[in-house]
């Protein structure tokens, strides 16, 4: 079919006739100062706090400080493109980011833009980054477990869906490793994971992406990255962006897990912004609202009531301490906001106990009610035994003679520590966790030399995999009865015959 030039002209004429001349009317202000990721704007009398501001060159910012004569604004982009005297426009929109299934498997920046080179994200929905946390009526107590796959955590410091559990410890103690293991363990479950990297090296994040891809878990994971090279404003925004993405899944009755790695750097970036915006400095030069910075973020993690679909958003914030000091400003703040903490100790880490969880200082305030019954019925006095062992171990080093009961406690403690050790990226199904803890608690390992405990564990797991698959399925269904315990004892004895 040939199109005649006359026809094209006719179409064009029609289009021109239909063209509606529209004005762009915008409230504007004048940039009077720009630099260090912030800008001050004169004018814009009606701007809202948190509103998006458009600068020349497509740069976007957010109004943070509404002062008598100017608006303090953080800039998400290159400040070099903005000059003094430039016109900044109001958008009348609170900063929004894309959310939805399309985000899964992608690495995005704090504005939700893809940075993984996999092309455009075709998100259907956008949601504001700052949302008020849900009220009491919309929530319900945490009741379902979120399995991390780590024996030490799932047994002693159980985490429930909708809980906020802090992972805290010095540098190089395995905080991120716990978070990554937890993500890996969500494979084949209905939990969507969001990993927010704040102020980290790009190489570290690239490594995490590779690990997640290798374990085939990237498909249900979103990574929000504001690396160390990004501006403080982007680092400040990243956790809120991640949280908004997580809330989307919670609100459609799904379950989501979000990891903030880490909030210490987030507080530092906020301090930087606040000082640049000339807000009064408080303790350690942090602004007065540094508590609110984290409380409003972590309060957004929640378990919805059944009328709202029962979805959940579980938060695992990470805090880095200096020299195991839990009493510093930011750690105490976040400890008081969260529903418990997993404290990682560098001494334990370097003595080979990995994950280096300090059982005495770690706690889960609400997770107990979410722990599966079977696990609850086998753990018994695990935490107390471990705490007592840690104390007795210190005494035993004096070399004084010990009574039989103390020796027995030490013997049991050593084995408990041994069974709670776990390799990185090797999360364990809960049934196997129950079995090995049962074995240690019942004293089956007491006669086994400590060096052999790992081998017994391996043997137990291979026996369970090969011979008792059905039994393992039933095991986690309900509370463990006396008959089940008898059956478990028989399996333990059978395994021990090989040693």
């Amino acid at each position: 079919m040939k199109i005649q030039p006359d026809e094209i002209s006719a179409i064009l004429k029609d289009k021109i006739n239909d063209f509606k001349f529209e004005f762009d009317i915008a409230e504007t202000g004048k940039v009077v100062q720009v630099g260090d990721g912030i800008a001050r704007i004169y004018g814009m009398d009606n701007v809202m706090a948190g509103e998006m501001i458009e600068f020349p060159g497509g740069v976007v910012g957010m109004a943070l400080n509404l002062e008598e004569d100017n608006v303090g604004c953080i800039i998400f982009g290159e400040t070099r493109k903005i000059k003094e005297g430039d016109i900044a426009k109001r958008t009348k929109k609170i900063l929004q980011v894309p959310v939805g299934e399309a985000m899964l498997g992608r690495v995005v920046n704090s504005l939700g833009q893809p940075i993984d080179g996999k092309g455009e994200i075709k998100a259907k929905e956008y949601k504001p980054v700052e949302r008020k946390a849900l009220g009491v009526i919309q929530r319900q107590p945490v009741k379902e477990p979120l399995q991390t796959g780590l024996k030490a955590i799932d047994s002693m410091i159980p985490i429930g869906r909708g809980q906020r559990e802090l992972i805290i410890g010095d540098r190089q103690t395995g905080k991120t490793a716990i978070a990554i293991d937890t993500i890996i363990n969500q494979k084949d479950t209905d939990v969507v994971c969001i990993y927010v990297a704040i102020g980290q090296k790009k190489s570290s994040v690239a490594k995490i992406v590779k690990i997640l891809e290798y374990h085939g878990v990237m498909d249900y994971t979103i990574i929000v990255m504001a690396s160390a090279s990004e501006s403080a404003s982007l680092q400040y925004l990243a956790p809120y962006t991640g949280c908004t993405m997580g809330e989307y899944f919670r609100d459609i009755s799904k379950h989501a897990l979000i990891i903030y790695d880490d909030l210490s750097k987030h507080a530092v970036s906020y301090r930087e912004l606040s000082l640049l915006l000339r807000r009064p400095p408080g303790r350690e030069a942090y602004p007065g609202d540094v508590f609110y910075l984290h409380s409003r973020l972590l309060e957004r993690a929640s378990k919805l009531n059944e009328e709202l679909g029962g979805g959940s958003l579980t938060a695992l914030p990470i805090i880095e301490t200096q020299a195991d000091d839990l009493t510093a400003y930011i750690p105490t703040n976040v400890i008081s906001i969260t529903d418990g903490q997993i404290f990682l100790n560098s001494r334990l880490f370097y003595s080979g106990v990995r994950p280096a969880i300090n059982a005495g200082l770690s706690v889960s305030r609400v997770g107990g009610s979410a722990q599966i019954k079977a696990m609850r019925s086998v753990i018994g006095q695990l935490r107390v035994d471990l705490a007592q062992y840690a104390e007795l171990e210190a005494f035993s080093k004096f070399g004084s003679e010990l009574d039989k009961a103390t020796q027995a406690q030490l013997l049991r403690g050593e084995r408990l520590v041994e069974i709670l050790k776990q390799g990185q990226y090797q999360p364990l199904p809960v049934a196997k966790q129950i079995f090995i803890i049962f074995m240690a608690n019942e004293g089956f390992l007491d006669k086994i030399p400590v060096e052999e405990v790992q081998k017994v564990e391996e043997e137990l797991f291979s026996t369970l995999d090969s011979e008792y698959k059905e039994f393992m399925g039933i095991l986690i269904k309900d509370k463990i009865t006396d008959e089940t315990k008898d059956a478990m004892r028989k399996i333990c004895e059978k395994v021990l015959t090989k040693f």
Partner: protein
Amino acid sequence: MRNKLIAQRYSKAIILNMEKRLLDSLLEDTNSLKTIFSQDPSLIKSFDSFLYPLKKRIDLALDVADKLNNKNIWKNLFRILIKKHRFTIIPDILIELEENILDSRNQIKVSLKIAHEQTDKILNDIAEVIKDILKKDVILDVKIDSSIIGGFIAQTNSILIDGSIKNSLDRLVKIKK
């Protein structure tokens, strides 16, 4: 920016102490002073300079004020500004005064960019369009800028009305993306 805030306060104080009927003459004074100071910016520096004795500077300023309609107001203002070593903010005060007076008359000054010279009729039509949007009578300050291709861009202190062809094309490009 700080000067702007101080200028706003001075301007507000002057307007509050003026009778409404005198506002027109005050606007006339303001425009005269704006012309004087824009023609010779060094004059402002001289009034603020410690090189000349304070009395001499005040006397000179009072001489200038004598030539204006509202002598007393200007004399008081100049005296305070020179004594407080703040005479450099006089241009900001004049701008604020002009805006406030226009505002009290429900008028607004609009900087209008157009691509080519236009007839008075078209300019009046544009002024009507802007008036409809801003709900104020418009005083146009027309500038030619061929980069906007066609249409117009009207800018006040806090509102930008972009009805340029360039903006429409930019919008079209964005939609196509």
